[in-house]
């Protein structure tokens, strides 16, 4: 952007300079007696100087050539060019090609009301033409510096940038007393234009180099590279840092194939998926994938791309890629520690819970068995002790009720108390869950595809509970693929109308699949194949779906992975009382049973 506007201003300047050209064809390179009548540069000389400027020739060299060219326009004329220093306090002589030793005697002049001609011109922001330095008080302190060269008149014109910032002074020193003629003025004007261009270009270049150096330094510090990708032609440009991150030589042309050669083989499907999407929609993207370097080390790259259209409407992505390896490593360590901790906490609390359930239930059970034993003995006695037996049977029932109360209390502990019945757009509910899980799915390098039916009728139920089910199915699917390395971790979530006025949601993964013997048990509480699982998810999910008068089922895929789906009636027909939904808490019952059976 900065570059193009800069060029624009140069174009204008060239236009302005050439517009005032005479038809003279004087060549720049030959320093020859000038056409005094015109006092102007030829188009060709201007072009040559501009070429030098834009080829990046050193500023003093360019200024010296201009000075010599001006001097060639007339006899007894010395040209000097002064540059304003950074602080704006002095102008310093940059060239005085025909005044030997001048710059050693007089290298700077203060910018101020009495700074000879060069300092005063900048100060006044207007030309200062001194016809005779011997009588002009401006020269009182400087006269001695130029008199050895036989100088009598000095004509100085301040130089300005295109934004009007003072750059320095262009000054002609003349042997004869006098003021500039119209031709001289024209010459000074034209020369000043070109000198202005040269200085400004030089400063811009310096500024550009400085900001480029800043940017490169910032990129290096933040291990962030930038790129652009012209989708139509697959033309890709990288910043230096990106070459460094990918560990490619700077002179290697960047292609998608080259990038692919560094991307971790397991992440190639995700990259392809990303590229396909990016080509299609042209909206912003954000991805994270791994690089596999030539020494087989792994880097994690976080990509952010912003899609824009050029004037012809072609898609161009501008983006940044950050090497987040360090970050990811510490996060992984933290995550591992955290999950281990969570597992320990869960096992501990589960252990404590089990012990407490065991104790609570064992007490009445103990009474039941003892009473029943007593009862049998009393009945077996001769004669049978019927009254005693009746009493022990009564106690047996009481203890049975006590055990049942324990179970009820546990159930209350596990169940959700508040239930809200409302119309639920399952698509919207699903989108929310997907949005919440997206980060985690991406981290697990899951490629998520959503196929949400556009004509899906609303269902009636508890939105949050249904979202819990969807979240649970997504998590399970993602977890089932966490060890999959030989194929894309594809996850499909689909909603559709089902037969019989029902709505179906399907979650299909490409994970480890379901073992036939596991099929019967997966919906049981505490059944789990995961190290960190408590085995409650599917059991709770099934309860929720059943309370919505639906069915949750699982089936192995033809290929790898498994498919879980539920279907629930749509519309107000599926409305159920809050009370009936509120009883979701059956896992507690199962807890108790399992604890009893397998303590």
């Amino acid at each position, binding site marked *: 952007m900065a570059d193009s506007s800069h060029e624009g201003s140069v174009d204008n300047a060239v236009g302005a300079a050439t517009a005032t050209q005479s038809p003279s064809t004087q060549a720049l390179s030959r320093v020859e007696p000038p056409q005094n009548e015109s006092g102007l540069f030829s188009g060709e000389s201007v072009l040559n100087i501009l070429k030098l400027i834009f080829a990046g020739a050193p500023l003093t060299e360019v200024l010296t050539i201009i000075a010599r060219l001006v001097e060639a326009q007339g006899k007894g004329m010395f040209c000097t060019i002064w540059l304003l220093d950074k602080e704006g306090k002095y102008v310093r002589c940059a060239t005085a090609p025909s005044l030997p030793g001048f710059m050693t005697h007089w290298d700077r002049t203060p910018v101020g009301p009495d700074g000879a001609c060069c300092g005063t011109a900048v100060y006044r922001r207007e030309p200062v033409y001194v016809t005779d330095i011997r009588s002009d008080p401006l020269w009182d302190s400087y006269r001695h510096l130029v008199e050895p060269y036989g100088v009598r008149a000095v004509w100085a014109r301040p130089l300005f940038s295109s934004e009007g910032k003072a750059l320095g002074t262009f000054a002609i020193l003349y042997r004869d007393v006098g003021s500039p003629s119209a031709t001289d003025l024209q010459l000074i004007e034209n020369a000043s234009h070109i000198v202005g261009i040269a200085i400004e270009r030089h400063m811009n270049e310096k500024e550009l180099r400085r900001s480029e150096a800043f940017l490169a330094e910032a990129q290096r510090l933040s291990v962030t590279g930038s790129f652009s990708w012209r989708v139509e032609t697959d033309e890709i440009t990288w910043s230096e840092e990106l070459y460094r991150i990918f560990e490619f030589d700077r002179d290697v042309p960047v292609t998608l194939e080259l990038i692919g050669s560094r991307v971790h083989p397991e992440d190639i499907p995700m990259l392809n998926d990303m590229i396909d999407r990016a080509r299609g929609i042209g909206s912003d993207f954000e991805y994270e994938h791994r690089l596999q370097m030539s020494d087989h080390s792994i880097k994690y790259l976080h990509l952010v791309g912003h899609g824009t259209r050029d004037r012809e409407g072609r898609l161009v992505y501008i983006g940044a890629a950050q090497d987040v390896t360090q970050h990811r490593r510490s996060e992984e360590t933290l995550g591992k520690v955290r999950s281990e901790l969570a597992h320990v906490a869960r096992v501990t609390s589960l252990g404590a819970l089990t*012990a407490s359930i*065991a*104790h609570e239930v*064992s*007490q*009445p*059970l*103990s*009474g*039941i*068995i*003892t*009473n029943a*034993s*007593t009862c049998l*003995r*009393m009945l077996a*006695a001769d004669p049978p002790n019927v009254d*005693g037996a009746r009493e*022990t049977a009564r*106690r047996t029932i*009481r*203890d049975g009720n*006590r055990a049942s109360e324990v179970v009820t209390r546990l159930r209350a502990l596990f169940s959700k108390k508040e239930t809200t019945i409302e119309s639920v757009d399952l698509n919207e509910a699903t989108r929310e869950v997907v949005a919440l899980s997206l980060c985690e799915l991406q981290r697990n390098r899951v490629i998520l595809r959503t196929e949400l039916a556009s004509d899906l009728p609303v269902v009636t139920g508890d939105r949050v509970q249904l979202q819990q089910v969807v979240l649970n199915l997504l998590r399970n699917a993602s977890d089932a693929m966490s060890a999959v390395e030989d194929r894309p971790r594809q996850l499909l979530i689909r909603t559709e109308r089902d037969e019989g006025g029902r709505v179906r949601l399907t979650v299909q993964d490409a994970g480890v699949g379901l073992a036939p013997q596991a099929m019967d048990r997966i919906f049981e509480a505490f059944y789990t194949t995961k190290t960190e699982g408590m085995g409650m998810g599917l059991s709770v999910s099934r309860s929720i779906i059943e309370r919505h008068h639906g069915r949750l089922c699982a089936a192995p895929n033809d290929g790898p992975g498994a498919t879980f789906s539920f279907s629930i009636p749509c519309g107000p027909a599926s409305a159920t009382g809050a009370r009936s939904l509120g009883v979701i808490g059956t896992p507690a019952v199962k807890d108790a049973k399992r604890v009893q059976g397998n*303590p």
Partner: protein
Amino acid sequence: MVRRSLVSVVDDDESVRESLPDLLQELGFAAHAFSSAEEFLTSDYVDQTRCLILDIAMPGMTGPDLQRELKLRRKEIPIVFITAHRDETVRPQVLEQGAVECLFKPFSERALVEALNAALRVS
């Protein structure tokens, strides 16, 4: 009439205190129940008790506390521990301290009889 051996039951759980003495009587023992270790210690039954069925976890003095206290008083009553906490580390501890058996609730009549027989053999 042959004097029946007295089996004392110490348990804070009421259903045990209600049910176990009846069964013990059906099995041919005299039985008495106490709701705490302190109650048993201050009663007149300590010296008569041929076997003690003792709950482990109780508020106040625990089963093992009572076991130690009886040892200090040189009352060598065989002890059968009963507990609803299936803590496998407790059993060897109390057995090492001289208990005859440690039963986990709920226990069967058969297990109880075997433990009582062992206890009375010891005495």
